[in-house]
């Protein structure tokens, strides 16, 4: 039986052999691998880029105190970006499943329409959920827009749900029973995260403090974005990556406030707009920053 970490090693190895840079997880909280700068910013502009990384993804509202066998506050995604997408991208993807020991002549694979959209990022794409014997194991997306910008090259984004995949391969009914590595179950490694973050997100987080933090991060992002000057000869030095971190902070705070029940439905749209505004601002400046200053 392959352990959780062996599955990850094999997938990374597989994509490394196909020209991907293997990155480590981003060190700011994100709700999905898509939000990492390695995806959100790198898909912009005309430069090809192939990258793969495992990203722990936090969804405060999905936490279940470690009680639910299939739902997690923090799950792990393997995120692969192939920009531009190769013609045989689906064959390559299917090859990755074989690399982790799934004999596709004996299993049922279907591609079911599922278009992806992230309103807070001004991003959307066309694609499928990939079903393996009735289980959704991957979201496959051809990005069309990011930060409200039409993409020069169309990247393929493959997002593997690693816990699901491991539970499938190890034939476990609960993600907590997954063998992380010999002698350690998923529960041994992650149960405390699930319990404690559920308590924090649903019960303990101080709403006023979270709002204050949200305002501070948003303010810092907005302040800096105003200073970006496309005509400045020094524009390459401009700290857009740190600005983008502020966007990620806001996004995570928004999700936490939401799970805390602190955002009414009428407010919701407005807060999404606020995050989107700074996200789009960064994306636009980022595209400009790649270009030389016009003479």
């Amino acid at each position, binding site marked *: 039986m392959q352990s959780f970490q062996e599955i990850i090693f094999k997938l990374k190895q597989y994509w490394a052999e196909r020209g991907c840079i293997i990155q480590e997880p981003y060190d700011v909280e994100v709700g999905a691998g898509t939000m990492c700068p390695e995806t959100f910013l790198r898909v912009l502009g005309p430069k090809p880029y192939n990258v793969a990384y495992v990203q722990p993804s936090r969804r405060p509202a999905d936490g279940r105190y470690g009680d*639910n*066998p*299939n*739902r997690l506050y923090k799950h792990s995604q393997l995120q692969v970006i192939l920009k*531009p*997408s190769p*013609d045989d991208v*689906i*064959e390559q993807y*299917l090859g990755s499943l074989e690399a982790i020991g799934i004999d*596709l*002549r*004996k*299993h*049922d*694979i*279907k*591609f*079911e*329409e599922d*278009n992806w959209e992230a309103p807070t990022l001004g991003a959307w*794409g*066309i694609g*499928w959920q990939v079903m*393996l*014997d*009735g*289980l959704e194991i991957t979201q496959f997306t*051809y990005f*069309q827009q990011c930060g409200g910008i*039409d*993409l*020069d*090259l*169309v990247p393929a984004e493959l997002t593997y749900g690693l816990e699901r995949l491991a539970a*499938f391969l190890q*034939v476990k*009914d609960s993600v907590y029973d997954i063998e992380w590595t010999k002698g350690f179950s998923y529960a041994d490694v992650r149960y405390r995260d699930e319990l404690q973050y559920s308590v924090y997100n649903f019960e303990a987080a101080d709403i006023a403090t979270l709002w204050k933090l949200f305002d501070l991060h948003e303010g810092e992002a907005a302040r800096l974005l105003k200073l970006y000057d496309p005509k400045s000869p020094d524009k390459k030095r401009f700290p857009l990556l740190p600005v983008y971190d502020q966007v990620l902070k806001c996004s995570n705070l928004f999700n936490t406030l939401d799970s805390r029940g602190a955002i*009414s*439905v*009428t407010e919701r*749209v407005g807060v999404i707009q606020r995050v989107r505004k700074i996200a789009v601002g960064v994306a636009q400046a980022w595209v400009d920053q790649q270009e030389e200053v016009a003479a």
Partner: protein
Amino acid sequence: MSLPFLLEIGTEEIPDWMIPDALENLRLLFEKLAIPHESVTMDATPRRLVLRAEGLPERLADSEERITGPAKSAPPQAVAGFARKLGVTIGELAIEATPKGEYYSFTRKVEGRRTKDILAEALPGLILQIYFPKTMYWTAKGGPRFIRPIRWIVALLGEEIVPFEIAGVRAGALTSGHRRLGAREIAVTTADYERRLRDHYVILSAEQRRQKIRKELTGIRVKPDDALRETLVYITEYPTVITGGFDPQFLRLPEEVLITVMRHHQKYFSVEDAHGKLAPQFAAVMNIDADPEGFVRRGNERVLRARFNDARFFWETDQKKPLADRVADLKHVTFQAKLGSYYEKTRRMMKIIKELGGKRLSIRAARLSKCDLTTELVKEFTELQGVVGGLYARAQGEPAEVWEAIYDHYKPESMDDAIPRNLAGQYVSVADKLDTLRGCFRLGLVPTGSRDPFGLRRAAQGVVRILVEGRVECDLLALLEGNQALIDFFADRVKFYFKDHRGFAYDEVNACMAAGWRDLVDLEARLVRVQKLRPTPDFEPLAASFKRIKNILDQAKFTGGGTIDPQLMEAGPERDLYDEYRRIAGQPIESVISRLRPKVDLLFDKVLVNAPDARVRENRLTLLKTLLAEFSTTADFSEIVTHS
């Protein structure tokens, strides 16, 4: 020589529901090329759209083109110029007689183009013109758009490749087999194409895939589900049915929930036992040929178990807070940004039900109807809104009238769907839909063309059906708050319902609606009467006479409506008609039509309505107007289209 033509557009997986329309669209685009052919066959799998035609000519027939030049009387330079432009001598020109005079002309022979050239030129544009509801680009910004990336193209006319290119893909003679069971590149000819695909586990014909599924389902008591079967036909290239089971303890959950999980989330057929009750089994359709080791079955069973566990968890958690305690929570659920929360919507619905004459239980049903929007189960299975509320209400001891009303209140969801089963459900459903309609129309969120994001047409259609079929008598116009746009919108729905859904003739519908449509139950009764009356011999002549009366009154611009003065009447037809009118007034049209009609005919035969004496004329017009009014309460018969 007559040639077969094969076009296969090889793509990545196309959404199943778009495929039949896309095929039809491709066929029409091909027909538009006007290349003669004997037959066309269309086929598709999720990965290929295929057009096959028989009997194309190698080249189109030669034709002649006549070019008309200057008039015969034109100066010689003009004639010479015309000939020079055509590259011929003046002697080769003909003189053509036209209605406008004689003109120089020249008939040029146009050689028929090669079919292959026409196709090579037209196909790239034609393929990219196929309509899909949503398209993507995949090469780079500004590149071609299609439903999914095009990966290969087969284009053969006879034995030759029709050469063209789209998005870097060159048309050729290589197709591709099943993703896992077939080869990636397979050389084909127009003759062996379908068989070669079959060898590589692609069943090209949707009908054959459908039959395969049907045959393999034989012997399993599946709930018939044509829509699901069609989805599976177009989501597979080699469908194979397998069955699986689940723990019977899950049968304690409501069937509706279990079936929704199986059908909507897993695309399984549910299975019934001999008594028609849900059995702990399912049938799934794989896109592969066999499952000898049971991997696929066990995988699907595990997924279903996890899903059912989730549903059970939600079902149990939600019950901890009864619906009645969730009413205030609706303040936090937005109905529409400008129309407030579901809490406010619920209040308005309760008010409408009071106006409709609904009693305590109907109002309670309305009060609880939206509470399931706050439950975990509905958040997970949104398509079960209403149904879940009804199930919780039942579990929480609400009377049948209330829980059934909640359960049914989104009905009817289509023209074929049933209306709510009890009166309370009918009230709640009507109130819900009317509130949405009123609110949206007040904000100007009115459907335009094919855009109807709030489903207002369906909502109004639902109201009409419930009022008529539930026999709910009420003043519909009063409920529309005098909003003219909304009244017109409803008038269209009422017309559509009686005409297209119930099959009444359009002029009967117009005639009866012209006599009023405040109460749709009454309108239906009048329509039935007019429909019965129509084939009787007196009907059409009387309708024609009524039209004549109406025209006379219109022409005279007669507005007076005084009393009839019998003293001013002539003896004979006029007086006879008046006396007849007095005898039959107040009786239904059916029982008097045979007596009325000859009297009306006689009046028009013998009496001049526009008498010279103004008082006599006024009196006659008053008689006609009174008559018209008396017998137009059922229908405005002048709207009937007569053949006489």
